[in-house]
């Protein structure tokens, strides 16, 4: 039996460190064609990231994790954002485009999934890395020198000779280093990594992760790491946030969430990771699929797939509440009295 510590006080969420980013009731709406209507992909998300903290944001494709990350930098031109994104005391959503542009690359930088498609095929590697600095008026020779220094630091061999090479002349792992160098050269305080290892093969994945681990520790970088790979989360992050259907459903220290996941969705995700010490004939998968954002069910969006649901689950949307050291959005943990005999899944 789970022990429930109802602590509805939101201020208890404050991380031990001084917060660098505080996101409050962030919503992201994407327009639907030219109809003027829109669909809410991210639905009132709040969290904070401390100075130098590494946070993983996990969820299935379509859960809104990438759009949440892009919203922090206001990268989607079409997205309509509301809420607050507090970075070091300024609300990013209220900045002018020009001021937001100044922050991008220098305060918050981003590493992307597929390093090939995120590099301009017509520009040399050296120019693309130096560009972050050149935009800010750094002289050509100086920018090139600093670009070379970062590429060297990231272990791009013969970097000096290859500054004038083009992306198509680099291997996948090397390209990812270039993309990382592009992000680091502006010396940001927060690095958003949007599935930076997904497109790479396993051996290169490990190299890139080690590298990311290394440089972020050395520079005291806060990292928001977006992934659907729980193995990566365990090795890299201190805290993990689980997203489902545009909301955060669980947020806590990696060790405690992995040891004792509270939300049935998190439990399912962890159960679905194949383990080498288990001898199974079939791998576990959470039944069903996430709801499309236009047809979210009433109540908890996870309830149609949940094996522990009960009466309230299809009526009330659970709030994200403090439960022990974590935050959880589930009626099982909201501290209210209820009949706890989950009814059987119909037809399943």
């Amino acid at each position: 039996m789970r022990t429930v510590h109802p602590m509805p006080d939101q201020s208890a969420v404050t991380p031990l460190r001084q917060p660098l980013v505080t996101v409050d009731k962030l919503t992201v709406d994407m327009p639907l064609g030219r109809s003027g209507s829109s669909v809410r992909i991210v639905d009132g998300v709040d969290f904070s990231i401390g100075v130098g903290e590494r946070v993983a944001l996990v969820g299935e494709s379509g859960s809104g994790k990438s759009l949440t990350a892009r919203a922090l930098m206001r990268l989607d031109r079409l997205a309509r954002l509301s809420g607050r994104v507090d970075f070091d005391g300024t609300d990013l959503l209220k900045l002018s485009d020009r001021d937001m542009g100044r922050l991008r690359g220098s305060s918050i930088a981003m590493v992307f999934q597929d390093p090939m498609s995120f590099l301009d095929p017509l520009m040399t590697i050296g120019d693309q890395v130096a560009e972050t600095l050149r935009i800010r008026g750094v002289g050509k020779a100086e920018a090139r020198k600093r670009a070379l220094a970062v590429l060297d630091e990231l272990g791009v061999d013969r970097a000096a000779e290859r500054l004038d090479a083009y992306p198509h002349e680099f291997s996948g792992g090397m390209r990812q280093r270039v993309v990382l160098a592009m992000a680091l050269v502006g010396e940001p305080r927060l690095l958003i990594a949007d599935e930076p290892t997904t497109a790479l093969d396993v051996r290169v994945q490990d190299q890139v992760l080690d590298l990311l681990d290394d440089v972020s520790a050395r520079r005291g970088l806060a990292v928001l790491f977006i992934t659907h790979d729980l193995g990566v989360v365990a090795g890299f992050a201190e805290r993990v946030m689980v997203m489902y259907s545009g909301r955060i459903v669980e947020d806590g220290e990696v060790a405690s969430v992995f040891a004792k996941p509270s939300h049935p969705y998190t439990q399912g995700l962890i159960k679905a990771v194949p383990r080498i010490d288990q001898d199974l004939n079939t791998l576990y998968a959470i039944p069903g699929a996430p709801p499309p954002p236009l047809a979210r069910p009433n109540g908890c969006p996870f309830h149609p797939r949940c094996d522990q649901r009960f009466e309230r689950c299809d009526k009330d949307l659970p709030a994200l509440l403090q439960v022990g050291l974590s935050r959880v959005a589930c009626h099982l943990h909201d501290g209210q009295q209820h009949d706890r005999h989950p009814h059987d899944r119909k037809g399943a």
Partner: protein
Amino acid sequence: MLAFRAYSWFLGRRLGLTLLTLWGLASLVFLMIKLMPGDEAQMAAGADASAAQIEAVRERLGLDAPVIMQYLSFLGRLLRGDLGTSIVTLQPVLADLEKVLPSTLELVFIAMLLNLAVAIPAGIVAAYRQGGVFDTTSRITAVMLGGMPAFWLALVLQYVLGSVWRVVPISGQQGYGMNSPVVTGAPTLDALIAGNFAGFFDTLHHIILPAAVLAALFATQIFRTLRAALLGVLRSDFIMAVRAKGATARHMLVRHALPNSLNPVLTLSGAQAGAMIGSAVLVETVFARQGIGAYMFNAVAQKDAFAVLGSVMFIGTVVCLVNLIVDILQLLVDPRIRAAQLGSQGQ
């Protein structure tokens, strides 16, 4: 050194292909001469030549030889730059073209400048603000201009700008007393060379309307092509990466989005340069300008077959050369094409 060899190998191949195309064109032109109804010797000798005169011409032109020999000597003459003799002017067609061509090149050059100077910025703004007011109005304008017959546009502009508002001359190449000594044959250039600035502005004043009419149709094509290419590129991932670096919209558009959208525009404008020389026929006629268009128009009107075919041959050569230049430009723009065409040593 290796790069030099790779480049000359590429150029050699492209030149070979160009020559092959020209040979095909020449064969086609020869076929057209042979397939034309009527007797060639009769045409060359003139409508009221006597039978003896016609036979003399037939012998002089080698028309009594077998067709294959005629074909070979036709190719031989082409190699020496002999495009045939005009029946009307009795001059070699090439000599006639040399006189009228600079004027056309000047018109086409200015029309091309106008075309790109209007269509490229318009395409950029329309794509960046897709669905906005500028995008909508410029797309409607492009459809209207693109669907409008050029001669009609020319007549309307002549009436409104030339006759009602009187801001530009209706026709001609220069005003009275504005002539400069002929050096190149292109009036604006000649005026510049002579240091005749009043004459220079006068010729520009005359060329602006015909160049605009010539540019209009082509500008709508460039606009649509660039807009479509840009829309695709603006959705691509690396544009987001550039924005994440903190680039301004202007920097992102000019340094990244535009170069990546230029390939189809380059190909199209190459084809347009040739088509513009063809379209000059109409514009030069309507605006009473000298040039290859007017020359061909007169040649057709006077059934001067050799002048027409010689001009066709000549325009075809220009188109082939322009395409060769476009191929080289594409090589300079895109390192991936460079790698594919030159091999790894081209880097």
